[in-house]
């Protein structure tokens, strides 16, 4: 009987009179107690005494608590003042001198940039006992596509470029599909390190760690060291997550020579020169986890890369960045799918080294640097790949291979009014000339140059949602013309991401 109204009162904050219910319940309890005691006068006196003792005890405790609170507040105020203006005593006097000024708020220790509390429940943060305060910053990318293609995506090949079985080329699948969803968590680890993971969830229900690395935040002299899994810093597009691309798919040259986007497990050292001109140097070493590497079992690094980027401004409306990168990867018995000189499918095994050189450039223009209304972005990359080693065709004895291939793209994106952009991209690949050695009977250099042209228009209803329509004519495979019609949405939820240039 008693518990019921109490519980109801406590549990139902929506009730308009919860305190009244509580009081009623308490009164009832006291009443019942009184009835049960049915006491003589001495008992009442004792009860009174006990109550008085309790009261004084609570008064004392309350007093102690109040003084503790007071002390804490004083200490806090002192700490805040010290934080605001440690060496200048006159500072607070100045603040007081400003009449009419709104009440100054002492600085709250600024949260580290990567550890912003994104919890919806406590938007203003700053509450000390909040268990979620140290949760990493979370952001989620949701994306989906509809693809209509005139050729079966299963038939997609890039003529003249042998790739590992299952390589990501072309548009993936026809019809409706869930494109890559991406979940990213990031936070500072301690005063010297930050951590980051990007999980990629694809339409076929596989989850993979796209990036997972720790990086330094406190090294001097412009040095930043990264360890773990990361996108290599080569080129321009390589280090960018797919949701920041201006077209639905990666350039064919990236698909043909860098396995769409080169990520590796390893270490990366970046150094920014202390010059006015932006000059960044990078060194990377990794296991060679993906094509052109082979993810082989070896103690030595399977991949090494060197990157250089420079850039600057031209007036107040234009900025640019250009770079030159080199990557080499080792392979031992790397399985490749190829097409022979008479058009037949061939299985190959490659052992040797691949040297990739990437030249990249991007130029951005916006009137007075204000990209809100209109801007133009011109971007291009050229990739050259040299493969040297031995190639075994269909299980035959390996023979020497010496091959140089190249390709690239040039694209322009123009925002002609707020929210609306159009883009054009043109691509061309050169399978180059190869010396197949004793394999000349099965393979021959082709004169076919794969090409692709794409046009896109996209609409961003907000900074966090974009809808894109893309049409492409893909002539990657000799004898096939694939007309691709793609529709895509891309959205970003959660923490406000900051994007690289």
């Amino acid at each position, binding site marked *: 009987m008693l518990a019921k109204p109490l519980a109801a009162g406590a549990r139902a904050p929506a009730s308009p009179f919860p305190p009244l219910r509580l009081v009623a319940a308490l009164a009832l309890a006291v009443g019942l107690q009184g009835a049960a005691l049915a006491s003589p006068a001495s008992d009442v006196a004792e009860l009174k005494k006990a109550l008085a003792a309790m009261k004084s005890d609570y008064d004392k405790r309350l007093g102690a608590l109040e003084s503790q609170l007071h002390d804490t507040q004083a200490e806090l105020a002192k700490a805040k003042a010290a934080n*605001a*203006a440690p060496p*200048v005593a*006159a500072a607070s006097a*100045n*603040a007081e001198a*400003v*009449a*009419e000024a*709104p*009440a*100054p*708020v002492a*600085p709250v*220790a*600024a*949260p*580290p*940039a990567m550890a912003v509390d994104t919890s*919806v429940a406590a*938007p*203003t943060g700053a509450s000390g006992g909040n268990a979620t305060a140290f949760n990493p910053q979370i952001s989620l990318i949701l994306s989906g596509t509809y693809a209509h293609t005139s050729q079966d995506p299963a038939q997609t090949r890039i003529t003249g470029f042998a790739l590992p079985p299952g390589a990501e080329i072309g548009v993936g699948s026809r019809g409706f599909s869930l494109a890559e969803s991406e979940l990213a968590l990031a936070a500072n680890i301690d005063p010297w390190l930050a951590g980051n993971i990007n999980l990629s969830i694809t339409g076929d229900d596989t989850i993979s760690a796209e990036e997972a690395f720790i*990086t330094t*935040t*406190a090294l*001097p*002299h*412009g*040095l*930043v060291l990264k360890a773990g899994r990361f996108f290599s810093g080569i080129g321009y597009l390589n280090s960018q997550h797919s949701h920041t691309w201006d077209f639905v798919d990666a350039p064919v040259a990236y698909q043909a020579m860098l396995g769409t986007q080169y990520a590796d497990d390893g270490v990366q*050292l970046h*150094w*920014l*020169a*202390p*010059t*006015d*001109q*932006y*000059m960044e140097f990078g060194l990377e070493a990794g296991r060679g986890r993906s094509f052109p590497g082979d993810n082989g079992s070896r103690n030595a690094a399977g991949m*090494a890369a*060197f990157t250089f*980027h420079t850039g*600057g401004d031209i007036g*107040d409306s234009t*900025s*640019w960045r250009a770079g030159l990168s080199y990557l080499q990867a080792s392979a031992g018995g790397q399985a490749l799918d190829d097409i022979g000189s008479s058009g037949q499918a061939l299985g190959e095994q490659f052992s040797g080294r691949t040297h990739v050189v990437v030249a990249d450039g991007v130029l951005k223009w916006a009137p*007075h*640097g*204000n990209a*809100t209304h209109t801007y133009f972005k011109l971007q291009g990359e050229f990739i050259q790949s040299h493969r040297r080693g031995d190639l075994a065709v269909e299980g035959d004895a390996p023979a020497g291979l010496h091959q140089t291939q190249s390709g690239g793209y040039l694209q322009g994106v123009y925002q002609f009014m707020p*929210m609306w952009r159009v883009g054009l991209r043109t691509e061309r690949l050169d399978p180059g000339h190869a010396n197949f050695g004793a394999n000349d009977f099965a393979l021959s250099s082709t004169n076919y140059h794969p090409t692709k042209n794409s046009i896109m228009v996209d609409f961003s*209803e907000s*900074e966090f949602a974009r809808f894109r329509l893309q049409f492409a004519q893909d002539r990657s495979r000799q004898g096939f013309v694939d007309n691709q019609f793609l529709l895509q949405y891309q959205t970003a*939820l959660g923490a406000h*991401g*900051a*994007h*690289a*240039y």
Partner: protein
Amino acid sequence: MTSSLKTAALAALALSGAFALPAHAAVKVLACEPEWGALAQELGGDLVDVGVATSAMQDPHQVQAKPSLISRARNADMVVCTGAELEIGWLPVLLQQSGNPKLQPGQPGNFAAADFVRKLDVPKQVDRSQGDVHPDGNPHIQTDPRNIALVATALGARLAQVDPAHAAQYQQRTAAFSQKWQANLQRWAAQAKPLKGVAIAAHHKAYAYMEDWLGLVEVAVLEPKPGVEPSASHLEEVLATLKARPARMVIYSAYQDSKPDEWLSEHAHIPAVKIPFTVGGTDGAKDLTGLFDDTLNRLLGALK
């Protein structure tokens, strides 16, 4: 790793040592917005070398961590920014890529002005259905000169902390600035009396602090949600609102496209007023004093 790469690594490390600059020269300050650049210059004088990351023609929400900014952050001793997530889209990546430990959050070289003022428009609930809201409150604190006074005090102290050898000079300059600003505040308070209670329409929710200072009453906002461009249909709604609650003027910032404001000006028969918003936004806003002189002149001019 090949030997050539090892050599390159050693060369890079050797270079980084050789380039390490001698400790003393002017304190290099990188200000995120022009108003903080102007303030750092007033408080630092010859002791500081101030660079400004953005101009009055740029929307401070939408700036990119471009190469020139990265190298300036690399070489800076201090960043002076607004904070309150105004620069969330570019500053974190700029600081991360700068490889400069002095500028990282929590360091004395990382100064966020919004930490030192009382913030308005702090949302009770944060959800993107409300547009590009700032969980820490409205970040456009520089539109109230009383905030400038508070930030000046804090920034003067911070400069003295970053460059203790010249602490006395910063203290002196800060005191002088505060005195000058105090006189300005009194002058502006007298000038601005006619603006009290005046109804305005605003392009973006960027003037909360100015409205608080001058007693302006914001009756309509042209952007349907913060950061979302005004649409034709929303402008019609704003026009309808203004029929019921008339405004005396519509206000927009120098960096904004004035077309929606001009449309409203024409249809509601009220003046469209361009506000400098920051130092350099108009010809009159040459420095911090000019920023508020010009703002007041423009607002008062619209009342005539």
